[in-house]
């Protein structure tokens, strides 16, 4: 029953973000990058429901457009992190010994540094672009998933059904993929959703510092940075992107909490 409340709240919040994502693809009211010198800093009204910014760009269209980039970056980044994390964590946990030590040495050395710092360095060295942000974030987040996979695998590999599979001659790769991985989902799913939320925060932070999505394309971090100068006079520049960011991250947290409760109580999702 508790998990249901989490799902409903998370579903509503994420529903708003997904609607924004779909609208950004099919029906934007204005070109998000088109400037209009005659309509600078217009307060929310009938023609610009979220108002306009200092270049006269429609904030509503820019919020929709930013949600597109944010959702795309977080999903693409988490996919890279998951693939890398699972591909390194499973063998580390399953084989143990030298394989485990060397993989975890590499993972731990990445985790020694603050994640945002590593991502910033990577983007600063290889250039600020959306694709560099995606792989940098993927690389920074991978060790977390590797740890989750490794710990779960170490526990599951001692269970009877894995011994059975080994006795019947199933190859290690298949044991990891078909026997162990499906049983790791209860740990991996909530971790993935939380990872999405954290990755969004990282991406916004990087954009805020100017190292994420590059202007004139919209991103929440950049929009918040730009709104600072107009905080008192045009608060809508801050409010609407912040709200959207809050909805997305809070929605993901609620979803992960719901998943955690329903998976840990053994109930169906």
């Amino acid at each position, binding site marked *: 029953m508790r998990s249901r409340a989490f799902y409903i709240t998370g579903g509503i919040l994420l529903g708003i973000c997904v609607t924004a994502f779909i609208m950004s693809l099919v029906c934007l009211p204005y070109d998000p990058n088109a400037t209009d010198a005659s309509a600078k800093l217009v307060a929310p009204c009938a023609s610009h429901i979220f108002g306009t910014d200092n270049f006269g760009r429609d904030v509503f269209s820019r919020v929709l457009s930013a949600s597109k980039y944010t959702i795309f970056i977080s999903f693409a980044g988490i996919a890279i992190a998951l693939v890398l994390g699972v591909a390194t964590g499973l063998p580390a946990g399953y084989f143990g010994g030298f394989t485990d030590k060397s993989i975890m040495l590499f993972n731990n050395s990445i985790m020694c540094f603050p994640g945002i710092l590593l991502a910033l360095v990577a983007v600063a060295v290889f250039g600020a672009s959306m694709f560099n942000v995606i792989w940098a974030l993927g690389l920074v987040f991978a060790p977390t998933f590797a740890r989750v996979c490794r710990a779960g695998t170490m526990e599951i590999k001692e269970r009877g*059904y894995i011994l059975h599979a080994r006795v019947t001659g*199933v190859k290690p790769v298949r044991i990891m993929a078909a026997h162990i991985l*499906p049983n790791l989902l209860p740990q991996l799913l909530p971790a993935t959703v939380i990872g999405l939320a954290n990755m969004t925060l990282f991406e916004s932070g990087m954009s805020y510092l100017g190292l994420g999505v590059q202007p004139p394309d919209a991103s929440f971090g950049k929009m918040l940075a730009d709104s600072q100068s107009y905080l008192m006079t045009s608060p809508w520049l801050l409010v609407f992107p912040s709200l959207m960011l809050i909805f997305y991250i809070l929605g993901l947290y609620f979803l992960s909490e719901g998943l955690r409760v329903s998976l840990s109580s053994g109930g169906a999702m």
Partner: protein
Amino acid sequence: MNTRHTHLVKVHDLSIAFPGVRNPDPVPVVKNIEFGIRDGEILGLIGNSGSGKTMTAMAIAGLLPDSARIISGRISFAGENLLTMNRRRRRMMLGSDIGVIFQEPSTALDPLCKVGKSLDEILECHGNKDRADRRAKILAILSMVGFTDPEDIYIRYPHQLSGGQRQRVLIAGAALLSPKLLICDEPTSSLDTVTTVAILALLKDICHRLHMTVLFISHDLSAVRNFCDRVIVMRGGEIVDRDSAEEMLSHPHSGYTAELLTNARLDPRTLGLTRASVDYSSSPILTARHLAARYDNSAKTVLSDINLDIYPHEILGLIGSSGCGKTTLSKTVLGLIPHTGSITCTGGRIGAVFQDPVSCLNPAHSVMWHLKEPLIAARKRMSSRDMKIRIEKALTDVGLGSEYLTRLPSALSGGQRQRVAIAMCLILEPFVIMADEPFSSLDASSASEILKLLTRINREKGTSIVLITHNIHIVRQICPRVIVMDRGSVCEEGLTSEVLQNPQSEALCNLLNAERRLHGDNH
């Protein structure tokens, strides 16, 4: 003598059910049962898994799961109705008036608490504020449950104790406040024979000294016979039989009790078991020489210098107390543990059946997937139709219908899971099956079915079986040859009749003594 017949606990018309959201009117799991526990007696409660024994006991202790509802009846304890009592008063009764010992000693103790702290908490909760007095009481009870150095046990963590020692600590915890009633929920089912006998003797002694009344739940009928004064038999939530232990177990009133007794004896004659005949002059199909193994990061050798021969068509018994290396030996032969020494086999595959039917199947996949997997792994080239036929045949061989193919392990009982595990092993037609205590965690009826199945496989397919077990009686009846292990090495080996007649090693003498004390000489 007068107090002997006053009832400490009286259960009147008790029914328990699990109502759900979708099923507000469920079938009760305990149906209108009535019984009393006399002051000072030891009452046994027996029945197969799911017969409602544990639910009945937990209702008395007030520890029913949240989803369970008592739909009718009353339980009186020393004249007070437990079901109408307020929660606080009921909670205070736990420990001081009603003690409980659970089945699994490995999970019943907090792994982060030292023994002393775990026990100290019990006394503190019940109002003893004097630290020195608490410590003295704990040391006294620890020595009462048979620890020769209670000071040492006081500062140990649960993982530093063996299963038997943990169970002693739990008994000490339950007896610490000298409760009037002690509920024992299968306290010996996860222990080996030697430890079981010791724990039962201890329980009996403690109960006598502290004048405790005991409700003893078990599916081990030998334990019940030796330990209890009176026995109640439950089936499907109802009481089907009740009498004094000796009378009931020698002259059962109901057919069900008789069947339970027959199954519990696992007697090959009554079960109609016949095995394949063995020719020991032929050459062995599996030979192991100078096997030694140790676990990672451990200097301790768990197996040392083991020689093993397995002959065609034989059922080889492998016995020994817990921790003697039986399971390690089977895993080593299966190639699951790195080892030194040589293993030569002339046949094809070695199959395995493990002890725990809960963990032997992957919860994420159906029965069909489990049976397909060995075929895929063995790269058997066959059409999907042939594969299906073969899978269905393997399932029929173990006595399950094709309707089980789509089921997930969670929808199977312990016995059915063990059958699926055997089918997974049979589908590749192994020449040897390593069966590691395949029935020790099943109830008597399922265990006898699995035993029948294994002997049938041996008889009809000629598969050799290495049977690892605690049950010497089964070994005596169906294994022509036996190996006795102690501390990681073979201490006796030979024809079962000779080895068990003239035990040479201390380990085997202990096993046989425990067997005699637990089961009597009726076997």
